[in-house]
């Protein structure tokens, strides 16, 4: 890629590929809802001010001043001053009612963009936590995907906080592990270690945010027998929001990548924290990742 014009052309061409959208179904759904969807009428006045002479303007202004002064006096002097006694209306005594508790959001991320050096908060799978960033270059997108972009491709890195439903026993054939991974952090760590064989380190006991956690380091093989986007690593249900999908799967970002995983049980939720670095990543990136992990505090 050599010029900005090349990039523009490539992006335009990619955006204009036919993606087979058909809006007929959703259009019918919308039209079916019109009867029950009232229009919001314009809030601005439809009338116009008549042409006024000076006397009218002065008169209207004076009247407005009188109204404002009167209302201000009423407001400032308290209720019922100089007026008739109000009819006492019985104030209903407060009846204790079960106030619905606000459901905390399951996913809350900082605003998309560069992450300033300092502490940041997010909520993943209903688990609120904070972490600090000690170096520049880290950013977060709208999905809570944290990444480090550098001009040196080898120093790029990605962070994901999420939960996993299961892993793939055969990533190229897309065969999920059967029976699926058990519910604990140790279950998942052992399954990753077993599935990745020699490409994984034995799970070790570590601490994340003051809680016991499992840590596994995986290496994405370079001779995988399929392309990397078809090399499925693990999946979850994606929040169950899709109509024609059973979940989301994660594929290998680059062959030869190192994926460091920390798995921690937090009040019943199994949080999966993964950091992915390129094969030629320097030790600084690894240190930055470890610094972020060490800074995690569960709120």
């Amino acid at each position, binding site marked *: 890629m050599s010029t900005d014009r090349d990039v523009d052309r490539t*992006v*335009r061409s990619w*955006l204009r590929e036919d*993606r087979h959208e058909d809006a007929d179904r*959703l259009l019918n759904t919308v039209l079916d809802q019109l009867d029950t969807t009232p229009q919001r*009428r314009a809030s601005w006045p439809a009338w116009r001010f008549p042409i006024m002479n000076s006397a009218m303007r002065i008169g209207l202004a004076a009247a407005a001043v009188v109204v404002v002064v009167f209302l201000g006096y009423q407001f400032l002097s308290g209720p019922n001053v100089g007026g008739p006694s109000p009819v006492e209306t019985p104030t209903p005594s407060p009846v204790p009612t079960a106030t619905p508790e606000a459901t905390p959001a399951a996913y809350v991320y900082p605003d998309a963009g560069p992450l300033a050096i300092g502490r940041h908060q997010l909520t993943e799978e209903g688990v609120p936590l904070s972490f600090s960033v000690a170096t520049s270059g880290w950013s977060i997108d709208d*999905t809570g995907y944290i990444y480090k972009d550098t001009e040196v491709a080898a120093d790029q890195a990605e962070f994901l906080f999420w939960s996993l439903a299961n892993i793939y026993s055969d990533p190229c054939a897309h065969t999920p592990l059967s029976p699926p991974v058990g519910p604990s952090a140790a279950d998942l760590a052992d399954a990753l270690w077993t599935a990745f064989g020699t490409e994984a380190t034995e799970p070790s006991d570590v601490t994340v945010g003051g809680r016991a956690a499992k840590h596994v380091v995986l290496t994405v093989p370079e001779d995988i027998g399929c392309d990397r986007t078809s090399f499925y690593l693990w999946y979850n249900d994606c929040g169950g929001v899709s109509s024609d999908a059973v979940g989301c799967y994660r*594929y290998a970002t680059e062959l030869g990548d190192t994926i460091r995983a920390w798995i921690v049980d937090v009040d019943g939720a199994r949080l999966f924290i993964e950091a992915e670095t390129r094969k030629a990543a320097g030790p600084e990136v690894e240190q930055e990742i470890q610094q972020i992990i060490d800074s995690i505090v569960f709120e």
Partner: protein
Amino acid sequence: MDTDLVIRAQGGDQEAFADLAATIADRFLATSHRILSDIDLAEDATQQALLSIWQDLPQLRDPARFEAWSYRLLVRACYAEGRRTRRWAPNIRLLPVDEPMAADGFSSVVDRDQLERGFRRLSLKHRSVVVLHHYLDLPLDEVADVLGIPVGTVASRLHYAMRAMRAALDADAGTTPREAAQ
């Protein structure tokens, strides 16, 4: 855009709105699909935008500005949908119901993977600018009008976004942006 249809729909004429919606629905879905990179979310955003248009149409003062106004509602709907889920993170994809174990089907994705990954890394605000300008061919001042932001901000977002896309493509070619610039 037929302003007569707009005016009639403003007055509550459902048939006029149906005609109006039919002329923009495909374009809206295509646009939201590109901004959100997810057809499910795009359908939800398009549906919500069309309903918002119906609801708020009486408040549109100048029917001739319908197009820019309606795209603004679409982009807002995309923002709202995009924040509902993370399933379009750069290296995560939907797992289809019917072929969870298919071994292929994504081979063509490989060629586009860097583009998609670069695009998915952009915030919704940056994506919107790219799509409105490079897909809908709106000049920068019209993009600014749609988004309700200054032209300078549009230019800045576009510059940032295209630089990021260039970095993604350069990474694919095995070069760094610095190398490519030389």
